[in-house]
């Protein structure tokens, strides 16, 4: 274990939110300012550290923190291009969400508990992103489950406890399957780190049967968090959580952790070649496609805004899995870039949904008539996010879909276009009516439960600016897709490395 800068940085990135989290737990409930300061210090410090990391990785530096837990069992935090993509997403969105949450929970109870777990949750996500081997990945994956459970249950209502219980039942079972798969794999490979191009190439064909079973275990474990149908049941149920939690769960932490795990397993454990050869990619692509369509169909039937968004997540996250399942760098780029794009778009939508609920008491689509006039900026942000989801250029979502479609063609899987097209139609079918209501219907005489904040804007600043900022991100990610350090360019870098181009 060497203690130089390159070996410390990944660990420091995890600790930058973990330590404030621990202190926040110990704070008294009324220490509002200290808690806010700790939160922001952690978020900003992490951002600075990640910036250093990006620069270093771009410059070809190797960052790796290794801690031996026990002989042969090593905790590895390693920054490769793929980790950096996910770490950056989490870090940026955490900062935004922290600001949002501070505003959202201003008069809530149990805030020390909430922000403590909130920090733990982000630490776990960043840990997942930086994991350098399966053991580390499993550890952080489970910690994430534990850290998000209290957030889902936070409100303490019977529905919240129930939703949290369902969430836990799904994720813990999934975690166990993942664990078994990881352990089994280890008995075949010994201790190995993730590696671009996979680490199983040297195994003899005798164990290929075992490898298929192991993949099934890993996929089942990861699929729970990634909400692959039929393992998605927890996601709509956990909508009882407060809005910042939903935002984080859907855009960054939980769902993305599952999708990211699938990417890791396919590219850096099995290797695309082997996975394709074993027929694993075909299975994955079918599952992903089915999930995409199913999620969209279900979303159309929901009246609750958050539930509709939740099913939309089910559908959209599988774009990442779909991109991963198609052989060829272009599809890979599409999947990876959607990891980021879906994140910023979905978090925008959830922030807006939270604003509607918090400011006007509007929680259902049917109540949204005329919200655009009452809350124009929020609704503008919502519109950007929704159009992006549908795939209207020049918003981020278009870029993802374009590359996915192209990748499908490149891989010779033309049916992918069909999936994408039907999904796009369905997306339009459940988002456009909302936009129509919001902008073109007359507002009701009175909102269900309106709060007046003493501000000149439509709602409290801490609630308003986060979605606006993320909406701007959505636009920029689409408009500046070709600029250096854009998500797309970074995804291209990863794909080149994975395919050894």
């Amino acid at each position, binding site marked *: 274990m060497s203690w130089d800068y390159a070996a410390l940085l990944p660990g420091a990135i995890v600790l930058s939110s973990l330590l404030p989290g621990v202190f926040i737990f110990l704070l008294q409930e009324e220490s509002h300012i200290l808690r806010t300061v700790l939160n922001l210090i952690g978020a900003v410090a992490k951002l600075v550290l990640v910036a250093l990391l990006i620069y270093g990785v771009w410059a070809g530096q190797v960052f790796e923190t290794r*801690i031996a*837990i*026990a002989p042969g069992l090593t905790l590895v935090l390693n920054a490769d291009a793929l980790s950096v993509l996910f770490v950056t997403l989490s870090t940026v969105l955490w900062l935004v969400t922290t600001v949002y949450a501070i505003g959202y929970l201003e008069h809530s109870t149990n805030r020390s508990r909430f922000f403590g777990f909130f920090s733990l949750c982000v630490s776990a996500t960043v840990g997942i992103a930086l994991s350098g081997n399966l053991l580390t990945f499993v*550890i952080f994956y489970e910690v994430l489950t534990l850290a998000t459970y209290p957030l889902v249950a*936070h409100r*303490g209502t019977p529905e919240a406890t129930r939703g*949290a*219980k369902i969430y836990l039942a799904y994720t813990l079972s999934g*975690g166990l399957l993942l664990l078994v798969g990881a352990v089994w794999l280890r008995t075949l490979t010994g201790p190995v780190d993730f590696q671009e191009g996979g680490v199983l190439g040297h195994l003899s064909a005798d164990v290929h049967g075992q490898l298929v079973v192991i993949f099934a275990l890993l996929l089942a474990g990861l699929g729970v968090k990634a909400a692959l149908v039929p393992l998605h049941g927890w996601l709509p149920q956990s909508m009882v959580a407060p809005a910042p939690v939903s935002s984080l769960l859907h855009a960054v932490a939980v769902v993305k952790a599952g999708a990211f795990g699938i990417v890791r397993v396919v590219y850096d454990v099995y290797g695309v070649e082997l996975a394709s050869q074993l027929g694993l990619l075909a299975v994955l692509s079918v599952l992903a496609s089915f999930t995409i369509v199913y999620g969209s169909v279900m979303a159309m039937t929901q009246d609750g805004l958050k539930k509709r968004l939740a099913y939309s997540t089910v559908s959209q996250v599988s774009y990442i899995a779909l991109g991963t399942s198609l052989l060829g760098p272009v599809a890979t780029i599409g999947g990876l870039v959607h990891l980021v794009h879906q994140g910023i778009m979905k978090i925008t939508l959830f922030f807006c949904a939270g604003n509607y609920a918090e400011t006007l008491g509007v929680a259902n689509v049917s109540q949204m008539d005329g919200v655009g006039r009452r809350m124009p900026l929020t609704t503008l942000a919502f519109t950007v996010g929704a159009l992006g989801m549908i795939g209207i250029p020049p918003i981020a979502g278009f870029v993802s879909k374009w590359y996915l479609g192209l990748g499908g063609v490149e891989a010779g899987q033309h049916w992918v276009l069909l999936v994408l097209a039907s999904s796009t139609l369905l997306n339009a079918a459940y988002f456009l009516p909302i936009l129509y209501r919001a902008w073109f219907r007359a507002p009701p005489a009175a909102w269900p439960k309106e709060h007046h904040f003493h501000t000149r804007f439509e709602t409290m600043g801490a609630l308003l600016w986060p979605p606006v900022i993320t909406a701007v991100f959505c636009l920029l990610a689409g408009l500046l897709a070709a600029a250096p350090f854009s998500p797309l360019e970074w995804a291209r870098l990863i794909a080149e490395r994975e395919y050894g181009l």
Partner: protein
Amino acid sequence: MSDPLMTAPLVLCIALPLLGALLVTALPRWSVSLGIVSALATAGAAVALTAAVWQQGTLHLILGGWDATLAIALHADGLAAALILMVNLVGLGISVYATDYFHDRLRVGAFWPLWLLLWAALNGLFLAGDLFNLYVMLELLGIAAAALGALTGNRDAVAANLRYLLVGLLGSISYLLGVALLYTAHGTLDLGLVAQRIAAAPELFAVDAAAMTLMVAGLALKAALFPLHFWLPPAHANAPAPVSAALSALVVKAAFYLILRLWLDLFWPITGMAAAMLLASLGAVAIVWGSWRALRAERLKLLAAYSTVAQIGYLFLFLPLLTATPPGPARDDLLAALLLMALTHGFAKAGFFLAAGLVQTHAGHDRIDDLGGTAQRLPATTFAIAMAGSALIGLPPSGSFIGKWLLMQSAIATGQWWWVVVVTTGSLLASAYVFRVLSRAFGLEPTPVRFVTDARAEVPALTLALVSVAVLGLASGPLWRLLELGSAGGGA
């Protein structure tokens, strides 16, 4: 080896708590302060002992300066040292907690001497290198434990601990008959020498096997291996919280340690796959049955007690894996994993029971379904339960996560994949019972004012739970070194 300074910790680990017990017996008015001083001194001796083993390997001391066959030996290898360290740190935590828990002067006076005697017995048992001395230690342990368990004086507690006492006595008598057979056949009582003679006399297989059966059966009764666990849940659930912690975390562990010691060091040449499989199968049933009953338990402490039944089961799963694994790194991993599971459970279960005691004190009861408000009012206590609970489930980064990882790895590698099914089932059930408790912490109660409300009781619970989660999970490397130093097992 015979340097008295180096071997002094061996003696002090036993003599100090014993002296402490005498002083608190003779001077009941100062029992709390004398008790805490003794606890600190004992824990210090244990740390010194572990440090000594760490520095120079196995410690061996023949008392009285006589021939090894004639006298009693004290013996500390890595396995014993690691367990001693756990027992004494947990013991210290329990002691600090107890200063806050007992308020009635009479019970304070009754608790301390018995607790220190129990402590002396635990240390003595881990360090004993003599078969008959182990019997005496077992009896001291059993009597002190039953007396402590009945301390509340209520009817359920007395009835349960009376049964515990009788069952324990039966177990020790069975053990003693085994010792008598071994003395008859091999003519000495020293553990190491008997081991040599067993290895050298394969023609006495039947005698040794019978002795092993009697001894292991007797100890399995004390270790509450299914179906001999029936006495444990009521006895542990009805004892005062610090006592429950000691019984569940330490006393049961001591009986298991002895089984392991006999299995690895004494009977290794004659243990076979069949015997190992039998014990492991019972362990597997214990895991499922114990977890299931924990899930159905209505009271928090009863839940914790059933969880102990399940957790002991895990330790037995290692036996067939050890049998199937040839000496080498894989076997070292397995032994370390076994030790890690035992240590983690020690810390976690103690933390759990201490926290449960706090909940009980504050709520006036420990019915799980009605705990909502209390769990929320005591964040530190609930945290302790949560962390200890994660360790019981085997979630990362707890020590039992590493233990289970290595256990499953070995099960797959040796083709005994069915234990993986058992472990996952047990983990799922454990998650269910732990989170059944934890979900009570989320309710519509008013926000607690501060994190820690009752430091002297909450800090020990929290610390013990924290050790089981963070320290053992993330820094278990030293255990490998300790085990390497102490020669545990027929392979070495």
